């Protein structure tokens, strides 16, 4: 019996080695790009969008002649929005011969995978992992704004578009996301032509009554209230502001995305609310329209922000790889070294921003975009 087991395992080992050889041999003429994200579970809608859009971008690039004349092979693995499964998926992709990673989709798994990828010196570009730690190593870059950078971007957007003169802020001081955005917003506001007239906090323990915060904003004459918070509290704030006849412009970040989906919420209260988001499917520019129509045709669905981030991500890899003059026979570490330099040299115009550039720490620099809620739908402006 023991002998038989041994024979089987030897055979298996031989078979495995054979598979390894065959993949390595095959890898010489294509770029192997991996993707990781949740395509099942609670965050599946994000992963699905990223998988679809990256595959679509890869197919387009291949049809147009590939990167430096070499085709892309794209392999997407599910992580169910779980850090451990994400690292497993990363290892699976490494065994497959991955040379670059477009992922992962969600912040916490991305932070875990980045720990591994930084050790391996594997190039990582996350479309949508927005936590600061998600790109901690010098091998990692991202397409979206980081959480705190949304504060800076919001202040710039409000200032540059002259949306307000006096801004009040209501933020959650017991939440890292919210207070992080508030801090960077306040710092950047000093360079902008508007003034923060009141900044009032609330905490997880006192998030039902916002009358004081709103009253202070009103008394200070704020014509805009900045809400770097999640939509649950924002829906209460909108209701309470309406009951006290206070109608400033409300401006939020991606945490407000979802406010229209709150069951039973009177969407007319959200009329005119603006939020910072890099992508609106109904934007009129040619690039967005082409993307949206071919995405709809392929997947029968209107693409969300994550899809746009991922689509850009694939083209950003192409741009940087061409700049670096990559060839598929280079190993992952050599590719990563070349990409690190190339990423800081390229300028990319995409769906989620034009004139995007990157600093060596991996953060994108791009002009912020916002949408406004009109007739109960997000509308580009």
């Amino acid at each position, binding site marked *: 019996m023991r002998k038989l087991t041994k024979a089987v395992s030897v055979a298996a080992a031989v078979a495995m080695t054979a598979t390894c050889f065959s993949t390595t041999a095959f890898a010489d003429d294509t770029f192997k790009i991996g993707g990781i994200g949740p395509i099942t579970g609670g965050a599946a809608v994000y992963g699905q969008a990223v998988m679809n859009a990256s595959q679509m971008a890869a197919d387009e690039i291949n049809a147009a002649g590939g990167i430096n004349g070499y085709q892309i092979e794209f392999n997407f693995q599910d992580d169910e929005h779980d850090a451990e499964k994400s690292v497993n998926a990363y290892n699976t992709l490494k065994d497959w011969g991955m040379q670059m990673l477009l992922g992962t989709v969600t912040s916490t798994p991305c932070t875990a995978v980045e720990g591994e990828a930084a050790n391996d010196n594997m190039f990582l570009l996350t479309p949508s992992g927005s936590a600061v730690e998600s790109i901690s190593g010098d091998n990692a870059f991202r397409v979206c704004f980081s959480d705190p950078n949304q504060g800076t971007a919001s202040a710039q957007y409000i200032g540059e578009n002259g949306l307000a003169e006096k801004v009040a802020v209501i933020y959650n001081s017991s939440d890292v996301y919210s207070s992080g955005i508030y801090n960077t917003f306040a710092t950047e506001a000093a360079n902008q032509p508007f003034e923060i007239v009141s900044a009032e906090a609330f905490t997880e323990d006192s998030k*039902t*009554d916002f009358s004081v915060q709103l*009253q202070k904003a009103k008394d200070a004459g704020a014509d805009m209230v900045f809400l770097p918070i999640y*939509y649950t509290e924002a*829906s*209460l704030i909108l209701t309470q502001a309406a009951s006290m006849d206070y109608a400033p412009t409300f401006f939020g970040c991606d945490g407000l995305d979802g406010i229209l989906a709150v069951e039973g*919420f009177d969407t007319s209260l959200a009329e005119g609310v603006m939020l910072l988001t890099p992508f609106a499917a109904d934007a009129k520019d040619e690039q967005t329209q082409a993307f949206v129509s071919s995405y709809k045709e392929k997947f029968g669905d209107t693409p969300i922000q994550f899809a746009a981030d991922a689509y850009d991500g694939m083209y950003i890899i192409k741009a940087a790889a061409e700049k670096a003059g990559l060839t598929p026979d280079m190993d992952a570490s050599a590719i990563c070294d070349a990409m690190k330099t190339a990423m800081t040299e390229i300028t990319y115009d995409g769906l989620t921003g034009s004139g995007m550039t990157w600093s060596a720490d991996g953060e994108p620099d791009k002009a912020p975009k916002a949408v406004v809620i009109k007739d109960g739908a997000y509308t580009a402006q």
Partner: protein
Amino acid sequence: MSFLNYLISGISLGSVYAIIALGYTMVYGIAKMLNFAHGDVIMVGAYVVFYSTAAGMPAIPAVLLSVVICTVLGMAIEAVAYRPLRSAASPLAVLITAIGVSYLLQNLALLFWSSNTKSFTSVVKIPALKVAGLNISGETIVTIAACILIVVGLTLFINKTKPGQAMLAVSEDKGAAQLMGINVNATIALTFAIGSGLAAIAGVLLCSAYPSLTPYTGSMPGIKAFVAAVFGGIGSIPGAMIGGILLGIIEIFGKAYISSQMADAIVFAVLIVVLLVKPTGLLGKQIQEKV
């Protein structure tokens, strides 16, 4: 001007605390136990109204349905989780069970209704009262009226009716009450029934005033209301109302005039000071233990 506005905000927040605190103090005063699941019964009450009005039921029958369901739920919780432990050696056992029931209700709610926020449509159709730039919402008026009605009703019930007298007797001495022929278990079950019915009303008014409903909606207001009950003198029915309203006013004034970040620290600091000066709370009775 803004002072008066803050005062009104404080009273509306406080009236919600008060109506929750009434349920707490009622159960504590009679059964001598802290029902930490009270806040979560409130949440269940609010969900019942949310779904029944969404299904097209008019507001008043929906509230009545919610009162019935919460009453049954409260009695069931008492019978299953608290009664068997009443004779346990340590009063801690039933306290811990109450915390357990609280988490059980929250997690069942997560399972049935998911964590997605629901926006509650107010059942109060009275328009806001606008006087000289001040704005008193219909919800506040109804909540305060409901508070006063409940305080008067409960006081009359306890002092003037037989079951009420039985409750008083049970609260003073369970053993002696039993010897006098009072059915202690039935009396305590009735207490829970009333307390949970009040929770349903509190839930509806809480969510009408602050229209966002999640499985955790009841937990923090529940704890604040417990503080209010202790503040006013736990066991005292008018004390719960006064404690609740004062707590709301202190919280709003703390936010408005000191710091919005420190509102909760201020509320609890005031509580500590009050308890240091008057350990039984504002209207609490000083009971001399005879040896």
